């Protein structure tokens, strides 16, 4: 009995690793596309908001250092979401490519888990790439070794948050609606997640402060600032952790249910 269960676990483990291997292989063979996908947007945000506006005197000195942690958060969340959602919508709704993996000897939940793991890993790599990009564009980036544990935690949470959003969107949206849904979700997410401004500074715009408090990405941006630029007023990290654990849990719950609904009739 237990030997059988162990064999079953080994079979599922092998299948899981093989599916993960497939995703890594595809990313590797398509590396320039991956890099373009993850680098371009934050690169231009950094360039315009961090460099150009500063050089022209429209932003105050030090804004770039306030922006950088926010862009790390943005990159992690958005990359996680995009990596998971777009292919999933296409695979379920159009190419049916996912069927071969759904028929692999592993539980359907593990297929979803592989998607989340892979998307999160890609998101972490993408955010990691932002550090040299930031140094390149800005000359220097804010860095505190004592903040690294919190930074790492925020990075993991941000990636999982993005993957969770991607899983929910990817299983809910049909290919015909993909454009509409992504513009409805993507743009507000991008601009209300406190990546370009610290949340406590919004007291002058109370309604916007409420709006941004509803975007879980805000808490990723705020923890990044707590880690890298603690002198800037920020939401307490423990509050961020509580909110993020809750939101990630909820998104994963909804997303995995959606995944089962799409995978099995």
């Amino acid at each position: 009995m237990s030997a059988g269960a162990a064999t079953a676990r080994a079979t599922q483990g092998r299948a899981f690793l093989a599916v993960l291997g497939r995703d890594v292989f595809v990313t590797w063979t398509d590396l320039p596309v991956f890099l373009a996908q993850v680098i371009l947007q934050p690169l231009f945000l950094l360039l315009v908001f961090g460099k150009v506006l500063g050089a022209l005197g429209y932003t105050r000195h030090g804004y770039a250092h306030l922006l950088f942690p926010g862009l790390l958060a943005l990159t992690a969340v958005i990359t996680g979401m995009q990596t998971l959602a777009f292919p999933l919508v296409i695979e379920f709704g159009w190419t049916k490519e996912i069927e071969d993996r759904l028929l692999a000897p592993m539980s359907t939940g593990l297929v979803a888990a592989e998607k989340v793991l892979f998307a999160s890993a890609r998101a972490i790599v993408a955010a990691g790439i932002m550090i040299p990009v930031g140094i390149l564009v800005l000359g220097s980036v804010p860095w505190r070794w004592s903040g690294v544990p919190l930074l790492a935690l925020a990075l993991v949470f941000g990636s999982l948050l993005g993957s969770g959003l991607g899983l929910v969107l990817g299983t809910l949206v049909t290919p015909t609606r993909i454009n509409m849904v992504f513009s409805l979700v993507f743009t507000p997410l991008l601009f209300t997640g406190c990546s370009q401004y610290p949340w406590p500074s919004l007291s002058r715009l109370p309604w916007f402060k409420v709006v941004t408090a509803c975007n879980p990405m805000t808490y990723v941006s705020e923890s990044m600032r707590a880690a890298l630029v603690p002198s800037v007023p920020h939401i307490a990290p423990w509050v961020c952790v509580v909110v993020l654990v809750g939101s990630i849990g909820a998104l994963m719950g909804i997303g995995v249910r959606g995944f089962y609904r799409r995978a099995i009739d």
Partner: protein
Amino acid sequence: MSRGTATATAAEPTSAPAVTVEELVKRYPKMPVNAVDGISFAVSSGEVFGLLGPNGAGKTTTVGMLTTRVRPTSGRASVGGVDVATDPVHARGRLAVVPQRSNLDRSISIRRNLTFHAAYHGVPRAEAEARADELLEQFGLRERGDVKPDMFSGGQAQRVMIARALMHQPQVLFLDEPTTGLDPAARLFVWDRLTELRDRGVTLILTTHDMHEAATLADRVAIMDHGKLLSLDTPEALMRSLPGSSTLDLALVSDGAALEPALEALAALPGTERLEAIEGGGDQQERVRLYIEGEASELIAPAATVLAERGLALRGVEIGAPTLEDVFIHLTGRALR
């Protein structure tokens, strides 16, 4: 261990059932009727089993349940001795699916489609590479192994999908409308490969609405309609079961004469079991089929006389044995498509 068993059973057909289905029911939420309505059957190891029926008959749902992608509402089903509802993970190792439309992985080459599939199923790498070579060769794809599937025609994609399905040496191979939409040459190629698989003892379950395909490939055919199994037997036995062992197709031109009295007179000819109007008569032609007990040729002269007496001209005569299509029409009261 399961792999060893799989290979052994695939190589030498035994009477052990490869698939069993007991009182299987699927009802989709918010639907007034059952998509599959309490069907039971068993498929022996090494058998080619055809599920025949029109679109919406419940074939695809049945296969969906057997391949763990559709959860049964009630009843039991097992593939290779594994219950598909309670142990889907294990069951997936014993079966393979070739869908109607390509679901090949477009990001990777044909060869990688095969080898990654094998990896998902735990086939060691060296073995997978060797098997991929062999299957690419067998399916006439050796030169195209490095191409991505986007470039492939329907027939080629179909071949790749069959090759991919065989990579983990499944006990039971499910094929959904394997040749629908293929040109005649591609269809023959697929049929030849499926015949080879049958000869090697792989259990095949194919859904089709092509009577000819079912009659050519299947050892036994199950006819489904409205979620129910109407009949299940060898194609020959199904055709023998029809009243009237041969048929006489007549093409008539009425030239304004009344058709009904003539048809009644035809149906009254000695030896005629029944008479059916069939479609495809063309311009002002009527086609009728007489089902006859005995020699159809003996009825040609009397039929011509009957028609001439009633002012109808006989334009064509064709003698035939009943086909699966006739069986289907007899069972359901309508044509397949």
